[in-house]
């Protein structure tokens, strides 16, 4: 029968694929813990780092499964392509139940493993331990800008300006997220995390930054005309710098409030990044 060479070829292919798999696994094991990033950022928070490792795990799985599937697709399409002179009638195989069971059960097992890791990391990144008042920042999103409420003062920035969300490194920082109007998305790429600011819902989550530095943040959920310009930045500083900054801002805000009280009118700024006393205005 003309099928014999094909069968032999198939066995050879399987052996080749098997040895390839062994080589890939061995190379992975020998290279130790240096798993590539696959394009993602290793993150500047502990939760983000967990997400990053989950990303690496998923990607290794995707490369193995996707690579195998892609190889099988290309192999089947190329190896069995008909030449112009070829008019043979292929074997009309329609069912192979054991094979079908194998490729049903294996994906179920893979999915269960992925789900188990997902739940572990999910519990990690959504955990909300109790956080001190100084480290609790209320973030208010509005069309089109952000307000950051610290104990005693507020920072506001809108359209094309980048207000700064300052927070201490190596401590838990709680963000209480609200929206004044439509749905916005609070997203800091290097924290590997985003959350909606939903009108009528107060979302909260806890970051534990591990690196100092200034990081870019932006609204991710379409919120109208100037959605593209709704930027902010996150500045992670040492806890000592944070404490100094916090008290200096509070002092400045208190002085401002006192001056305002003397004038018995509060300066109402309309635009620009400002530091103002938190007099309870602008809340929901």
């Amino acid at each position, binding site marked *: 029968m003309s099928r014999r060479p094909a069968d032999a070829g198939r066995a050879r292919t399987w052996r080749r694929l098997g040895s390839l798999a062994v080589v890939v696994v061995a190379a992975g094991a020998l290279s130790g813990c240096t798993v590539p990033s696959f394009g*993602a950022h290793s993150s500047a928070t502990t939760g983000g780092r967990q*997400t990053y490792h989950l990303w690496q795990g998923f990607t290794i799985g995707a490369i193995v*499964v996707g690579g195998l599937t892609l190889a099988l697709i290309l192999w089947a399409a190329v190896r069995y*392509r008909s030449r112009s002179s070829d008019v043979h009638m292929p074997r009309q195989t*329609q069912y192979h139940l054991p094979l079908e069971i194998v490729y049903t059960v294996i994906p179920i097992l893979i999915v269960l493993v992925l789900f188990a890791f997902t739940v572990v990391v999910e519990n990690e990144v959504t955990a909300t331990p109790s956080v001190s008042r100084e480290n609790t920042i209320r973030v208010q999103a509005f069309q089109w800008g952000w307000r950051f409420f610290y104990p005693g003062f507020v920072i506001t920035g809108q359209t094309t300006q980048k207000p700064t969300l300052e927070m201490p490194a190596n401590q838990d920082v709680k963000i209480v997220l609200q929206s004044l109007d439509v749905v916005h998305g609070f997203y800091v790429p290097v924290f590997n995390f*985003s*959350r909606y600011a*939903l009108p009528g819902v107060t*979302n909260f989550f806890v970051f534990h930054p591990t690196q100092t530095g200034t990081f870019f943040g932006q609204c991710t959920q379409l919120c*109208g005309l100037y959605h593209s310009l709704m930027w902010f930045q996150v500045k992670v500083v040492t806890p000592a710098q944070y404490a100094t900054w916090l008290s200096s801002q509070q002092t400045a805000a208190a002085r401002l409030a006192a001056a305002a009280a003397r004038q018995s009118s509060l300066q109402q700024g309309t635009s620009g990044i400002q530091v103002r006393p938190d007099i309870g205005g602008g809340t929901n």
Partner: protein
Amino acid sequence: MTELIERQTAGGDGAIVVEVHEAPHDAHEHHEPTGILKWLTSTDHKVIGLSYTVTSLVMFLIAGALAELIRIQLATPNSSFVSLGEFNQLFTMHGSLMIYLFIGPFAFGGLANIIVPLQVGAPDMAFPRLNALSYWLYLSGSITMLLGFFVAGGPADFGWVGYAPLSTSIYSPGAGPDLWIAALLLSGFSAIFTGVNLCATIFYLRAPGMTMFRMPIFTWNMLVVGILILLAFPVLTAGLIMLYCDRHFGTHIYSLKGGGVPVLWQHIFWFWGHPEVYILALPFFGVVTDVIATFSHKPVFGYKGMVFATITIAALSMGVWAHHMFTTGVVLLPFFSIMSLLIAVPTGIKFFNWIGTMWGGRVRWSTAMLFAVGFLITFLFGGLTGIYLASPPLDFFTHDTYFVVAHFHSVVLALGMGAMAGLYYWGPKITGYMLDERIGKLHFWLFFIGANVMVLPQYWLGLLGMPRRVGVYPHNPEWTDLNQWATVGSVMMGVATLLFLVNIVYSWFKRVPAGDNPWDAQTLEWFTTSPPPHHNYYALPPIRSERPTWDYNHPGAPALVHGHREEPEASELARV
């Protein structure tokens, strides 16, 4: 009413042919109108289906042109090619036209409308006048959507998902959003009526011998799509009516101020929106299944597994909507995560069945087959990245970034390739003429390479943190190169689409007759003439398996189970 008279005669080669004759009093079919009057008044599923196909392809061209404008804007970080307001309108209309008015109507109003009655051996859809109503509603909806460009304030600009409260009258006043809502209501009702028609046709109008498990996979998938349409579209319709009431009649269903719940819109929208993903995908799963089997000269591998995979996907798709809402903070994460992850299993079964169908076959690289393989590869990327998005922590990481844009463009561009596979495969059956294969192959390669040149950099952009729906990115010049690659890819697809139009015109003038069965295909529709006559069949072959045309043409090559002929088939053949 047409009366069908069935009579069994011995065919030339000994096979039994069931001849279907129309009763003599139906001879007035020759007085049917022609030309524009035929198009306006016809209830023939083939005429309606062709109208659907042409209209949806026009929507595809308009939406594609909008995409090119989007890509021109994004090729530089601080472009002023269009204003930010115009940019919001561009991507809203691009998405709305593609999703609501091209890929879905093309699948269930165009291809399925023509092919499903042929595949089950029916003379027409079950409710021909309802079918005509579907088309006219769809055309009205399409025109209504496009009218948005001509009103003060322009078309809707709140994204194709229209999240409340941005889509309420406070934040998006004007006629454009109202036209958007009206367009979706019209096209939504058209989809519902088509769903009714598909289910009724497949359940009640199958030819003698065409049992459920002898239906082609395309027809099976369209049955499941019909059911999904009936489950999902009424919810969207209700949601849209409530949105309209919020905008004009003073209700506060989605607005906080009257005690409403803004997030309700997201629940309603995605309760329709995720089944909708499979309403769009399953037809093209069916197309590539039929195409791959035909051009591999083999039966569909794991046919019954394929059917159960389709049903499983549909069932799971009703319980995964909130994976679009992981970052809202108000949904139960693990439930929607495992439901979403599980969809990978039946989808994986389909992939291995497609590979198994090609395996050991005689694979002919026709244009349709190339598009089908292009579908497999592109959909593989979309499917794998979908698994990431089913995991809440990874979704927090990538939600509303270009990673998601890339994910669903992999998916829908794969579906677009499925659509092209369907056109190159069934085009000859519908028109009676072949599409040119040389231009077709060029069309494929340009489109396939362009699609992936556009999409693959966008995954990376998402990982770098580029949010979707932003028109400028002055603070992030490092995103420029990848965006320019995406623009190059989109231009390649644009050129490929122009080549497709050239192919249609060229083939129209060249007029190479197709014959009944140019591909040596297997399913019933290839038994009739190309194009099929009024009421589709002069004669039907005996239907004893899911590939009656193949059995008729190749009596010595029945399907094998574990290397054996399936027993009932063998005994039936022995009798003949």
